C-alpha cells in the first residue's frame, strides 16, 4: 500500500489557482521528484503536505490514515495538525536553522520539547536527554558533520547548514521527508555535498519528496517524477518515462532547456 496518497488537492491564493486537482501516490522507501518551472505550484504542494498551507479541496492520507480532508473540518483541528505534521519533515531552501543554537542543539530542540510532554519525562530526564543527544549526534555523523556539532549556524558554510537542517528533520523520524529546492541557495561547489547526503538517504530507502531544479540529480535519485506546470500535474512516471520519453509537448519544452545547457 502507498505510504502517501494525495487526491484532488486544490489551492488558491485569492483569485490565483496555484494547485489544480493534484493526485498522486508514493510507495514507502521511494523517492519522488517534483520538477517544473518556478511558480508551477511545487513548493505550495510541499507546504500543503506540511500543513503550512491549507488546501481548499482534496484529501491527504498517510499510511491509510486520513490526515486532511477538505470536506471534513474535524481533520483541521489545531492540536491534531501538530501531531499530523510529524508524519512529514521539511527541509527549506533557506535552511531556517535557529541561529542561537549550535548544530547539535538545532537537531535536539524539537525532540526534547516533545519528550517533555510525556508523562514519564521527569523521572527519566537524564536518560531521555542522553538518548536524544546520542541520536542527534548520530544523525550529524551521518551528514558528515561530527566535527561541527558545537558550531553555530553563522560559523558554518551553506552546505553544512543545509546538512544540519537535514539532520534536524531526520531527528523526528518523519515518514516522508520533503525537500524544497534544497540546493537553490548554494553555490555549485556546495550543491554537490548536499546532493550526496540526499542520495545517501535514498540508498537507505528513506521516503522522500524532492522539489528540485537539478535535473541530472532528479533522474539519478528518484523512482518517480512529477512534472508540474501552471498548478497541474502535466506528466508523471518513472524518471525514464518523464526524462527520456516525455509525452507532453510542455514537458519536452521544459526539459530541452536543461539538456541544451
Amino acid at each position: 500500500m502507498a505510504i502517501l496518497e494525495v487526491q484532488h488537492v486544490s489551492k488558491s491564493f485569492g483569485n490565483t489557482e496555484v494547485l489544480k486537482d493534484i493526485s498522486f501516490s508514493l510507495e514507502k522507501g521511494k523517492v519522488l521528484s517534483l520538477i517544473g518551472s518556478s511558480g508551477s505550484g511545487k513548493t505550495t504542494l510541499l507546504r500543503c503536505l506540511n500543513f503550512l498551507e491549507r488546501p481548499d479541496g482534496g484529501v491527504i492520507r498517510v499510511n491509510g490514515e486520513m490526515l486532511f480532508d477538505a470536506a471534513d473540518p474535524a481533520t483541521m483541528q489545531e492540536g491534531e495538525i501538530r501531531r499530523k505534521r510529524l508524519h512529514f519533515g521539511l527541509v527549506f531552501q533557506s535552511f531556517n536553522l535557529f541561529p542561537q543554537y549550535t548544530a547539535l542543539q538545532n537537531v535536539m530542540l524539537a525532540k526534547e520539547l516533545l519528550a517533555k510532554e510525556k508523562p514519564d519525562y521527569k523521572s527519566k530526564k537524564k536518560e531521555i536527554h542522553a538518548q536524544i543527544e546520542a541520536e542527534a549526534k548520530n544523525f550529524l555523523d551521518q551528514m558528515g558533520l561530527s566535527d561541527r556539532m558545537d558550531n553555530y549556524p553563522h560559523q558554518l558554510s551553506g552546505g553544512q547548514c543545509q546538512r544540519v537542517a537535514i539532520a534536524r528533520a531526520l531527528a523526528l523520524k518523519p515518514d516522508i521527508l520533503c525537500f524544497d529546492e534544497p540546493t537553490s541557495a548554494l553555490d555549485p561547489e556546495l550543491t554537490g555535498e548536499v546532493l550526496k547526503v540526499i542520495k545517501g538517504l535514498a540508498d537507505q530507502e528513506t521516503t522522500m519528496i524532492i522539489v528540485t531544479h537539478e535535473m541530472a540529480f532528479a533522474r539519478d535519485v528518484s523512482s518517480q517524477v512529477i512534472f508540474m506546470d501552471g498548478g497541474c500535474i502535466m506528466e508523471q512516471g518513472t524518471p525514464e518515462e518523464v526524462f527520456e520519453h516525455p509525452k507532453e509537448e510542455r514537458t519536452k519544452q521544459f526539459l530541452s532547456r536543461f539538456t541544451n545547457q
Partner: protein
Amino acid sequence: MEFSEQFPIVVQALNVGFLQTLKLFFVTLLGAIPLGLIISFGSMSRFKPLSFITKIIVWIIRGTPLMIQLLIVYFMPGLMGNNIWGGGESGRFLAASVAFIFNYACYFSEIYRGGIQGVPAGQEEAGLVLGMTKTQIFFKVKLLQMIKRIVPPMSNEIITLVKDTSLSRIIALQEVIWAGQSFMKGNMGIAGVIWPLFFTAVYYLIFNGILTVLLGRLEKKLEYFR
C-alpha cells in the same frame, strides 16, 4: 555658609532625592517591559478592532508630551471628584508610576513590534514543521532573536527614561531635581544657591554611565549568534 559646609548637606539631600528617581526608574521598567509586550501583541492582532484601538492609544500616548500626561493622570481624578491618589508623596509616586509605565510601554511596544516582525517567517515555519507549538516557538526560538534585535533601541529608551524621570517634578514628586531646587528657596539652612540644582546632572551622568556599560555588555553577550 561655606561651600565645604554646604556640600555634605546638599549631597545627603540629593541622595534621598535620587533614591526616589531610581525607584521611579525601576518601577517604570518593571511595569513597562511586560505591558509593552501586551500592547505590541494587541497592535499586531489579526482581530481588527483590537489592533485599531491599540494603535489609537499608542498614537495618543506617543503624540502628546509626557509632562501633560503626568498632569492629567495626577489631577484628573481629583477634578472628577475622586482623588484616588491621595495628597502625599506616596500618592504622587503612584500617579507618576502609572503615567510613566503607560508612556514607556507604548514606546517599548513599537520597539518590540519591530523586533518580532524582524524575525524571519522561516523561523516560525521551521518550528511548526518540527511539531513545536506557537508558544514554544515564541519562547524557544523567536524571543532571543527578538531580544538581540531590540537591545540597541531599548538601551536608548532606557537611558532616556533615566532623564525623563525628572519630569515628575511637575507634580512635585520629591526626586533629585526637586531636592536640588529646594536649596534655592531654602532648605536645611541653605537658601538662594543654584549649584545643587546643577549638581544633580552628575547623578544622572554617573547612573547612565553604569547603565551604558551594563547594556553594552548585554549586547556583547548576544553577539555569539547572528
